[in-house]
C-alpha cells in the first residue's frame, strides 16, 4: 500500500504557497488609495498586510509539511522518499 503523492494535506500546502502569488501579482485588485488606514493609502498597507498573511501561510505550510513527513517516515515503505 503506497501513500499517494497528492494528498489533501499536500494540496493545502500548495494552496498556502500559491496564494501570495495570486494576491500580489493581481495588482489591479489593490491599486487604489481608499480605504486609508492610519493615514496610509490602501495600496501600501494592503501589501504590508500581505507580509504578515504570507508569513502565516508559510508557517501553516511548514507545520503541515513536517507532520506529513513524520507520518511518512513512520511508515517508510509507503513512500520511496519521493517528496519535494
Amino acid at each position, binding site marked *: 500500500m503506497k501513500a499517494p503523492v497528492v494528498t489533501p494535506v499536500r494540496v493545502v500546502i500548495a494552496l498556502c504557497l500559491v496564494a501570495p*502569488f495570486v494576491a500580489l501579482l493581481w495588482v*489591479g485588485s489593490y*491599486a487604489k488609495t481608499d480605504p486609508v488606514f492610519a493615514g*496610509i493609502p490602501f495600496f501600501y498597507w494592503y*501589501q504590508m498586510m500581505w507580509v504578515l498573511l*504570507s*508569513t502565516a501561510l*508559510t508557517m501553516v505550510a*511548514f507545520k503541515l509539511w513536517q507532520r506529513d513527513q513524520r507520518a511518512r517516515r513512520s511508515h517508510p515503505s509507503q513512500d520511496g522518499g519521493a517528496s519535494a
Partner: protein
Amino acid sequence: MKDGVNGVALAVFIVFFLAVTVMGFLASRWRRAENEHSLDEWGLGGRSFGTWVTWFLLGGDLYTAYTFVAVPAAIYAAGAAGFFAVPYTILVYPLIFTFLPRLWSVSHRHGYVTTSDFVRGRFGSKGLSLAVALTGILATMPYIALQLVGIQAVLDVMGVGGGENTNWFIKDLPLLIAFGVLAAYTYSSGLRAPALIAFVKDTLIYIVIAVAIIYIPIKLGGFDEIFAKADEKFTAAGAGGLVPPEAGQWTYATLALGSALALFMYPHSITATLSSRSRDVIRRNTTILPLYSLMLGLLALLGFMAIAAGIKVTNGQLAIPQLFETMFPDWFAGVAFAAIGIGALVPAAIMSIAAANLFTRNIYKDFIKPDATPEQETKVSKLVSLLVKVGALAFVLTMDKTVAINFQLLGGIWILQTFPALVGGLFTRWFHRWALLAGWAVGMLYGTVAAYGVASPTQKHFGGSSKEIPGIGEIGYIGLTAFVLNLVVTVVLTLTLRAAKAPDGVDETSPEDYTADAGDPGVQVELPPATAGAGAGH
C-alpha cells in the same frame, strides 16, 4: 546639506565601524572547526549555522546598504512604482520553501559549494556549469560595487566625501580604508566574519527603522500629511503617483515576480543558504525572514517622508541619508549612518566570498588545475575574494556611478537566466544540457539587447529595466521576458534533442539525494575535510 563635517555623527559612525572591525577579525575563532583550511570552512562557515545565525546572515546578505538607499530613493522619485520591492520580497519565501531544501540536501550529499557544482554534477556538463559560474560572477561584481556606492552616499552626507575640488586621494580615502578593512577580515575569517557582523548590522537597522517610522511622522505631522504632500509633488511633476496607473500594473507585477525568481539565483544567497545546518533551518527561516520584508516596506515609506520633509537632492541616492541628517539629532544620525555603512560591509563580504567560490570551484578546479587540494582551493578562493573587491573598488572610483547601476540592472536580468538549469535541475532531469545552454544564451542575448535599447530622460541606453513584452503589448520586466524566452527555447530544443537521441551527460545524483537531511547516511553535520576538495563522485 549642512556645510562641513558632521563631527558627532562621524564620531559615532567611527566607533561602530571600529567595533565591527574587531569582531570581523575575532570571527575566525568563532565556532572554529578542526580543519580550517578547507573551502567548506572558509567559504561556508563549516556548514554549521542554525536558524538564528542563518536568519541574520540571509537578512544581512539580501537587504543590502544599496537596498536601504535605493528603495526609498525610487519611491522618492517615482512613488508607487518603487514599492514593488515589497511584493518581490514576499514572493521570495514561498519559492525558497519549495526548492532550496532540495538544493541543500543534494549539496550536502555531494559536497557542492556553488550552484555550478550542482549543475555540473546533475547534467554532467562542464560547459553549462561554466555558463552558470560566469553569469554568477558577472552579476555579483556590480552588486559589490553598489555596496560601495551606498557607503559613499553616507560619507558624502557626513561631509567626509570632500568637495569637487579636493584631491581624489583625500576624497576617496575613507572609502579605501573601509574597504581595506573589509578585505582583510574577509580574507582571514571567511564567511564567519559577515555572519557575526550581521548581528550588529541588523540590530542597528531595526533600531533605526523603528525610531524613524515613529519619530519622523510625528515631526512631519502624521502620515496623512506626508502622503498629501507627496501626492501634491507627483501631481505637480506630472510623473509618478501614490498608486500605479493601469498601464504600470504589468510592470509592477513582472518586476516583483522576476526579481523574486532571480534573488535566489545570486551566488551570495546560495552561499548563505548552504552554510545552514539542516533542511529545517531553511524552511523555518522562510517563516521568520519576512520580518525583513516588513522592515523594507516601512523603509520604503521613508521616501515619501523625504518628500514631505522638503529634502531636495539631485542625486536620489542621497535622499535618505539626507533625511536622517535633517530629522535626527546628530548622534542618532551617526547610528543611522553606521547602520547603512555596516549594511554595506556584510553583503560585500558574502558576495566576494560567493564569487570567489565560483571561480575556484568551477573555473580554477574544472579547467585550470583539476587536482587542486582543499588547501589550494581555499588559498585561491581567498585571493580571488580580494581581487573581486579590488575590482569593484576600481569600478566605483574610475567609472561613473551610473555604470555600476546599469550593470547591476543587467546582472539581475542575467542571473535569472540560470533559473531553468538550477531549479529545473532540482526537480527533473528531463531538460537536455545543450538545450539549457542554448536557452541561457538566448535569454542573455535578448535581455542585454533589450536593456541596451531602453532610453530614459537622463540616459540613452540602460535607462530602465522594463520594455514592451513582444506579443502582449504591455510594458514588463525585461528579465522575465528573457526568462520566458529562455524557457521556450529550452523546452523546444529538449524535445528536438530527445527525438534526435542526443547523448545525455552523466547524472551523479540520485533521487534520494534531494530529500536527504542532516543525520541521514552520507550527510554529516560537519563534512569531513576530504569531501570539500574531492567534490565527491569525481
